[in-house]
């Protein structure tokens, strides 16, 4: 039994080391069986983490629940943003969560890296605000010189901690490999772009509380955008992503746009190295490449969700389906919906 275990471990290790997919930690989202990550031993058992990430896990166990929620958030948001595309961010139950789709340096990979780095920063920040973490804010860059810290000058924003954690946890893989490979550069860039999507869209809110509530005294703070908005921003960046190649300038290697006509990308833009496949057909050699057969499409649309594009010219079949829909519902703000059932027939188009 132990032999088998060792073999499996070695296999897994090989698998981890060989694949260039640094987003394996997203597999955390699938580990519902583990329950809450409470002690250091659990860290060892988590699949998908590289050794350095396990160390981080051990060092800050309390954050790992938030990281897992972040992974889940990233996958959900990816699936929402790509719901109408040929590749709809479908996940597998096995180890590379997105199969091999994101192993190449495609746009989709860029998106996945960006959204996952952002989601960790987001989830950790939220966990800070809800009091789950003890290390937030006050540990890092307290802007008062006094040792009294919180009492003297308060703590810094939680987002600083969230972003710092995301940097250390998500980027660690690329960093450990060194900055040499172009793929590592691309991943690091996209991770940072994802975090920037939060940071540069924090909105400032202010409250006046001077004499009689006048603005003589005003306190402002930065509030995190909802994650849906972050997803939308990164999706926009995905649509305008820049194809880059690695070039050596001096001793450092940098990514520059492949087409020199294009203006150079900014810190907030996504970059990719390889053009994406068309995602039209199922490819058994590429896990996660499910193809568009059977996907629902929009007959009237000319965009990517339209049947023309979605079905890659294979055509589609239409069938009339009777759908039981909810109608004239009564909602409460939470947890209660009372609806009538309405039956209606709709035309459904599915790709051949």
């Amino acid at each position, binding site marked *: 039994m132990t032999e088998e275990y060792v073999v499996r471990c070695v296999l897994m290790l090989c698998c981890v080391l060989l694949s260039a997919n640094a987003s394996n930690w997203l597999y955390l989202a699938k580990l519902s069986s583990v329950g809450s990550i409470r002690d250091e031993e659990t860290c060892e058992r988590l699949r998908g983490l590289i050794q350095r990430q396990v160390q981080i896990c051990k060092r800050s166990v309390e954050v790992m629940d938030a990281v897992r929620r972040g992974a889940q958030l990233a996958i959900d948001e990816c699936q929402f943003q790509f719901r109408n595309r040929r590749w709809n961010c479908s996940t597998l139950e096995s180890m590379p969560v997105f199969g091999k789709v994101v192993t190449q340096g495609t746009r989709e990979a860029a998106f996945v890296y960006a959204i996952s780095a952002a989601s960790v920063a987001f989830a950790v920040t939220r966990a800070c605000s809800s009091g789950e973490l003890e290390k937030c804010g006050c540990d890092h860059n307290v802007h*008062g010189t006094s040792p009294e810290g919180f009492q003297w000058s*308060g703590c810094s924003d939680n987002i600083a901690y969230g972003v710092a954690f995301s940097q250390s946890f998500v980027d660690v893989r690329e960093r450990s490999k060194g900055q040499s490979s172009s793929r590592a550069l691309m991943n690091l860039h996209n991770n940072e772009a994802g975090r920037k999507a939060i940071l540069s869209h924090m909105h400032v809110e202010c*409250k006046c509380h001077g*004499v009689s509530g006048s603005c003589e*005294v005003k306190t402002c703070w930065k509030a995190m955008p*909802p994650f849906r*908005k972050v997803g939308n921003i990164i999706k926009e960046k995905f649509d305008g992503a820049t194809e880059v190649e690695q070039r050596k300038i001096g001793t450092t290697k940098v990514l520059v746009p492949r087409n020199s006509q294009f203006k150079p990308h900014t810190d907030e833009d996504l970059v990719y190295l390889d053009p994406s496949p068309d995602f039209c057909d199922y490819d058994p050699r590429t896990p996660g490449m499910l193809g568009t057969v059977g996907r629902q499409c929009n007959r009237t649309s000319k965009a990517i969700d339209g049947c023309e594009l979605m079905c890659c010219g294979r055509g589609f079949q239409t069938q009339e389906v009777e759908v039981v829909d909810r109608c004239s519902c009564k909602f409460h*703000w939470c947890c209660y919906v009372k609806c009538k059932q309405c039956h209606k027939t709709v035309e459904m188009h599915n790709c051949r």
Partner: protein
Amino acid sequence: MRRRCAPHVLPAPASGCSGIKLSATRSCDSWFFFFFPPPFEVESQEQSGGGGGGPTARVVSAGGCSLFSSTLSRSFVARRDFSLQPFPFAMAGAIIENMSTKKLVIVGVILLLFQAFAFMVGGLIAPSPTTAVHYLATKCVDTVKQRQETKWFMPWGPNQCDKIRTFDEAMAKKIEANNIVFAVHIPLPNKEMSSWFQFMLVILQFDIAFRMHNQIKDGALVTIDVSLAYRDDTISKWTEMAHSFEQRKLSCNFTTTKTSENEGRHYECDLLPFMEVGSVAHKYYLLNIRLPINERKNINVGIGEIKDIRLVSIHQNGGFTKVWFAMKTFLTPSILIIMIWYWRRITLMSRPPVLLEKVILALGISMTFINIPVEWFSIGFNWTWMLLFGDIRQGIFYSMLLSFWIIFCGEHLMGTRLFAAWSLERGQVKMCESGLPTITELVTELGSHLTNNLQDQTERNRLSVYWKQVGPIVFGSFCLFIFDMCERGVQLKNPFYSIWASEVGTELAMAFIIVAGICACLYFLFLCFMVFQVFRNISGKRTSLPAMSKARRLHYEGLIFRFKFLMLVTLTCAAMTVIFFIISQVNGGHWHWGEHTVQVNSAFFTGIYGMWNLYVFAIMFLYAPSHKRYGDEQSSGQCITGDAGANSGEDNQLTTTITHVDGPTEIYKMIGKEAQE
């Protein structure tokens, strides 16, 4: 008898007026006092005809009066003392006039140093004034149906509640909305609140997701069942502090189109004022919030799909409080001492104090009232009314300051008008030949004007004359006081109360604020009108300038220049103040300057506060009666010694040196005698 000038009838250079005009410039007024009367000298060297090096005429007329005879010097130097007396009549012989330029410069520099110190204390030592802390409410499940004692739900730590992450989870577990309790523990783990935080206010924000079929209805009200508890150590039981049902209006808008594509996006909702406590006497606070649903009463129906409740708590930073207290503790005795000193000087005079002197004292008192660091008690005692008390103190000071400006301005304005009328009427300006113990008809004439003036003075030396101007101030601040009582006064009883939450309350609050605003507008109209009148006087004089004798023209030009200069300085100060205010509002709150972090907001608060104190200090110091004025009458003999001849040739030599000028008291006596005779 000597010939005397009548200092009090001369136009004030309106040092007050122009300083006052700009309400936003409060801060600059103290600067203004550094600049304006003292250190500035008008030197107009005039070379006429052939004779180059004529004797320099040094006109030092502290009384503010210089009636020039038509004789004139070739070169004419007006020292700063030449400036016309800012206080007509009453304040003649104030320290500001009798002090040498050097001393005044020293005083100015010392005050400026203190000012810079005040800024630096805030910018370099103190942290930012306030801190905002984010909280995300934890969703607890209240499983027990009916219980006797209230249970408190802890979001984390030992004895934490049964949590759910999302409401989808609740849906699956069939948990009802009424069983969900949002729990927030203030502060975050491993921290403690402290009474140094002075106050705490909490803002509520709902994260509401858009759903096609579950949208927020127009004018939706959310009813919140909230309770607040405290404890002072981590193990003891929670003690209830307040419990209330509150209603808040949800004003949310959805920025994108309301299509099913955009489901799941969040509404953008306004911040809701939630709680305000005037003292932070306990270490730990716990908020339990429920959003009960009652369909029959239409409570909490149609408020959309709430995803989360976020709170932001704002408190003053302990470090800032300490710096602030230190400043207050230091400033209180300084202002108190100068105030006592000032009033002693007033009472030492033979005449009763005039209105302006009383107003200055009142200003000093209100400043001391603000300064007294009663907040020290809030460290030891749980005085929730401290916030309200602070508001009242500030309000009193502001209205006192505004009244002071208007009265100061008014007194000067009348002086200006009188002077203008008088001097024009005379058609000729005569040099005061003091030191000559002869009575001329000039003095007789002068005397009659002075007696008129005296009558006028007694008439306007009453507060009731200013009812038109002071009325709006009093009424406006009274409105704001009522408003403040309605908001912060009620919050003493119920920390969750907000006047803005109800329709009637909002209208009432708006009414108070609008009335106060109208009063403020009225006030500034009056003030502007007064300044306008001063300017009109100036332009009136200007038209008659060419017809005047050279000396007189120079005198007027100097006067006008001084007033304009003052306006310029004041406006510059105002602009600086406004800019600084804007910087502190717009800027993120701190600047990095090398390795140092400069807290702009704190610097603004301490700097402005220090400035006010220095302003009041400077007024009381500089406008206290000079001791040269009372007491030794004999020594204050000479007014102007000069060889001002009777010749009326414009280019004749004039050497006028005023060795000393005493206050008007003597003049009145003279006039009195004159009248008797």
